[in-house]
């Protein structure tokens, strides 16, 4: 089991980066959904006043 630490470090690093990227994408998606909802509100308001 010599060098087990290196093996664990490599695999932990891989999963940390992959999950970090997936989480970042999810955050971007949530932000976009909020922005779209705000835009929809603006469009609705503009439609009512027209």
């Amino acid at each position, binding site marked *: *089991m*010599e*060098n*087990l630490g*290196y*093996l664990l*470090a*490599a*695999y932990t*690093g*891989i999963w940390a*980066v*992959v999950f970090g*990227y*997936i989480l970042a*994408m999810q955050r*971007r*998606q949530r932000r*976009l*959904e909020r*922005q*779209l909802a705000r*835009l929809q509100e*603006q*469009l609705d308001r*503009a439609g009512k006043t027209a």
Partner: protein
Amino acid sequence: MRNGKSAVRDSFLWGLGLLLMLAALYMVFAYVPTEKNTGIVQRIFYFHVPLAWVSFLAFFITFIFSILYLGKRAVKWDALAHASAEVGVIFTTLVLITGPIWAKPVWGIWWTWDARLTTSLVLWLIYLAYLLVRGLTAEPERGARFSAVIGIVGFIDVPIVFLTVNLWRTQHPTTIVFEGGLTAPMLATLLVCVTAFTVLYALLTWQSARLKTLEAEFRRLTMMQTEKEE
């Protein structure tokens, strides 16, 4: 934002990706025998090599969609090229992280400026520039055009990286996979890992491209709304 059918398809594909990755992990840690010369740390090979191969594939896809974008100027081609480059940079980052972690116990050093390692670092920098150049331009379309040029010209480095170990004498091992240097269980494990990472790449790229297309559409609608208000 998504209909029920595409949500079911997405869940199925992510489930398939997860199963493949679990199979890959099982084969790496439970199935394949430990390599005699370098010991347990050699198991890094089964993720390090697929990550490198799939990053080459990612940059090839960026190359193709960059050409299509420059020819047709359709947002979807830019979104796919951009998403593929993004995932390619992440995978190359992982290659540059796992490589030194594997090198230290085997070579006794973390890094050496040999041809394979240096050209791999250059490849990472080229596609990092591809991603950064978008943020440096005020107009998104201009940024997309600049990065498409980088995506096409930068691809020259991919075959160079691949051939370095055969063209020059390097610290990095030669392409043992193609020279029959692997036993049957090692080759089977490598192939399962390559498949798992190819599916992961496709899923991440598809998801990211869809998000980028929506972001572009949102920018377009916001501009239209602002113009209307003015």
